[in-house]
């Protein structure tokens, strides 16, 4: 892909056709259409990289369902990476977990084409301010951008959701602010970084593969230790609460149930990682299913070591804001579209 063809933004999401958290597919379709519209309207060139991890045997691919539901987006914006289910079994260090979310995200980050890569989730709506900020094309290279997540109350009518509903504060569930230096708090819902820096950090932790919980926070510790400043992008993202979400379920499930879904608590704030060069299953052989869908075939050579202990490391302490701000590369003409009013 040439520099001219490269989109300004790659949006990496993961999922599978397992109805996670109920109405998974419907929620994904809603947010995908919503965010695509918001970005397109403002001239932000983008691609959505869907990583279908551990596809459910005997059920249609999530990719195909999305393509049928949103053909116009599927033909222009969506790129799918279907990862053979055997990778889940081969990679996991916790057989109770059935979805190594951040390994899946790494697959997408590694294969993204955009100047900036946003790792997010399938049920996250962009705010108006966020879409405008992305359209301004003034993001700094070498800075991790975070956005506060605003939870919209459970049971809200999602059939006609728009910014009027999302922005209405009486629909919100109170939630803390994000604050420096790490701006943690639902970080997995919004982690934006230029592709080069994402690759320099080598993605999310795939050395510790026992949990989904707090791997996002661990990435912030890693990035900070790596010398990347972390900043609040200034506008929130919205998440409509649903049954099965971590926020709603963490206090109602038993320890065993919670561990099965997200894994146990671990030393995510104190211990980081140094992923191998083959992070994101870069060695996995591929088969092109069609021009927008790639299938990652299983190969033991692509599987990271089951236990790679020397790659478990301590972060570098930093008392001052890390340096490393650089000026963003020149934007392609399509990126310089002025923001819509």
């Amino acid at each position, binding site marked *: 892909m040439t520099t001219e063809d490269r989109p300004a933004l790659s949006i990496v999401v993961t999922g599978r056709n397992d109805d996670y958290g109920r109405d998974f597919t419907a929620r994904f379709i809603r947010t995908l259409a919503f965010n695509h519209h918001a970005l397109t309207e403002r001239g932000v060139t983008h691609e959505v990289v869907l990583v279908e991890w551990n596809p459910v045997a005997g059920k249609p691919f999530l990719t195909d369902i999305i393509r049928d539901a949103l053909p116009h987006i599927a033909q222009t914006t969506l790129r799918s990476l279907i990862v053979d289910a055997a990778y889940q079994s081969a990679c996991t260090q916790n057989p109770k977990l059935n979805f190594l979310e951040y390994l899946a995200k790494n697959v997408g980050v590694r294969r993204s084409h955009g100047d900036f890569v946003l790792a997010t989730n399938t049920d996250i709506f962009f705010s108006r301010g966020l879409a405008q900020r992305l359209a301004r094309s003034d993001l700094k290279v070498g800075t991790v951008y975070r956005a506060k997540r605003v939870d919209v109350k459970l049971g809200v009518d999602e059939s006609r959701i728009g910014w009027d509903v999302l922005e209405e504060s009486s629909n919100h569930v109170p939630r803390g602010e994000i604050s420096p230096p790490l701006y943690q708090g639902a970080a997995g819902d919004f982690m934006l970084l230029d592709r080069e820096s994402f690759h320099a950090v080598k993605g999310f932790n795939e050395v510790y593969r026992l949990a989904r919980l707090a791997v996002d926070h661990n990435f912030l510790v890693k990035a900070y230790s790596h010398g990347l400043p972390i900043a609040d992008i200034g506008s929130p993202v919205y998440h409509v609460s649903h049954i099965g979400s971590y926020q709603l379920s963490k206090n109602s499930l038993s320890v065993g149930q919670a561990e099965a879904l997200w894994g146990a608590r671990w030393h995510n704030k104190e*211990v980081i990682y140094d992923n191998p060069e083959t992070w994101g299953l870069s060695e996995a052989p591929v088969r092109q299913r069609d021009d927008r869908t790639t299938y990652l075939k299983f190969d033991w050579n692509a599987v990271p070591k089951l236990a790679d202990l020397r790659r478990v490391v301590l972060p570098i302490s930093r008392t001052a804001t890390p340096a490393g701000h650089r000026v963003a590369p020149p934007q392609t003409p399509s990126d310089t579209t002025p923001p819509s009013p």
Partner: protein
Amino acid sequence: MPGSWLQAFGLARASHLRSLADQVESAKARTGDLKGQLEKARGEVNHWKTRAEETATRLAAAEQESERWKGKHVGLRAKFEQLATAEQHYTLAREHMLCLETKLDIVEGAIDALDRRTRAVLSTPPALEASEHDD
């Protein structure tokens, strides 16, 4: 001029004598007051002398104490530095312990995963084959 006549004989008028006697009494009374005040002032001087002596004693004691604390301060400072070093060692040790715990978790997880794979292989035909969908 009876006054000047009496004066010529070394005598004074009775009224003059009374006045002089009053003045003498008044002077006596004043002397008494002054004596009283003098006594009071002496008392105060003695009081302040005592206070000054006490203060001097206290000052000497404080100086002694200060010298003692100076000596102690050096010892405490050394102890504080030792404490800071110990704290740093503790932090480092804790970090390494957490790192080791994480590694142990990974080892345990790996053993668990291998155990399941082994059981799967032993109980059924090969389980970890590529499972590509027909599409």
